[in-house]
């Protein structure tokens, strides 16, 4: 399993992501955003978290014009698996590879804490190691994590099973930290090969540090 992890100026979760995936036995490579190609044998492309281009203008807005993005478009359009974590999710929505947009948190504060998430749908390559309805504990750390999509778009996400994760409490009841429409924490595209989520599974891989619920999720990303 070969994983390419993207690095923009301002990305700061690439090494955590690398550590997490290597712990699970994957071979990883960090790709600088100036590269116009991504390794051909990439099985999974990860856009890691952070603050690409200082979040100037809007989170993820400038990164979508980086040289590497056209290679990502081609890779994704050919069915390649793409995972965007936090700022990576913002980049994917800005690049229109995922529907919707991420706005400033409703309470206006940066939120950094563990949060429970419910698996809404596991009929996709990313979450197939988990069961629909599972509740997992994963950290969130964002200022612009308030997912927005209009009513028609939301309906489409529901019909196509594109809502993968929702923010909940420990019992799986909706608990919304940031004002996201329908408490959405992660969505995939219609073809189900591109997945974006605000929480950081790569930060939940050691029980010593609070939770290892991220491992199951990351293992799903490694499957098939």
């Amino acid at each position, binding site marked *: 399993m070969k994983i390419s992890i993207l690095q923009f100026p301002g990305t700061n979760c690439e090494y955590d992501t690398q550590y997490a995936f290597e712990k699970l036995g994957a071979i990883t490579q960090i790709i600088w955003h100036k590269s116009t190609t991504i390794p051909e044998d990439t099985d999974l492309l990860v856009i890691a978290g952070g603050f690409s281009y200082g979040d100037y203008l809007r989170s993820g807005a400038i990164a979508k*014009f980086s040289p590497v993005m056209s290679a990502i478009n081609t890779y994704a359009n050919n069915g390649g698996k793409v995972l965007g974590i936090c700022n990576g999710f913002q980049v994917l*929505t800005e690049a229109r590879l995922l529907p919707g947009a991420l*706005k400033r948190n*409703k309470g206006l504060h940066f939120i950094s804490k563990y949060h429970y998430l419910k698996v809404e749908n596991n009929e996709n390559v990313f979450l197939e190691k988990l069961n629909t309805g599972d509740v997992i504990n994963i950290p969130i750390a964002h200022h612009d994590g308030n997912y*927005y999509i209009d009513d028609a778009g939301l309906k489409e996400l529901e019909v196509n099973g594109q809502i993968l994760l929702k923010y909940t409490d420990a019992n799986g009841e909706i608990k919304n930290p940031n004002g996201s429409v329908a408490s959405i924490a992660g969505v995939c595209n219609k073809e189900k090969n591109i997945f974006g989520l605000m929480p950081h599974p790569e930060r939940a891989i050691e029980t010593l540090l609070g939770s290892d619920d991220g491992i199951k999720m990351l293992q799903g990303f490694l499957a098939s």
Partner: protein
Amino acid sequence: MKAIVNVFLKAGVLDSQGKAVHHALNSLKFDNVEDVRIGKQIVLQLNGTDKAKAMSDVTKMCEELLANTVIEDYTIELI
């Protein structure tokens, strides 16, 4: 020529910052404020004098970068 671009969240998309400022103004006893919307202004210095071309160029800039049309509207003024 200058282009003044104003970008705001669309009507119907919750503007949390606007709401917070609205509350603050009300608590300062400015009771006549009914709504606050916060946006950003981007000022572009352009070369050339062709207004029609400038308008079409800046519209393209807004669509591609300056605004995220999923959540934002924009206005363009040329002076």
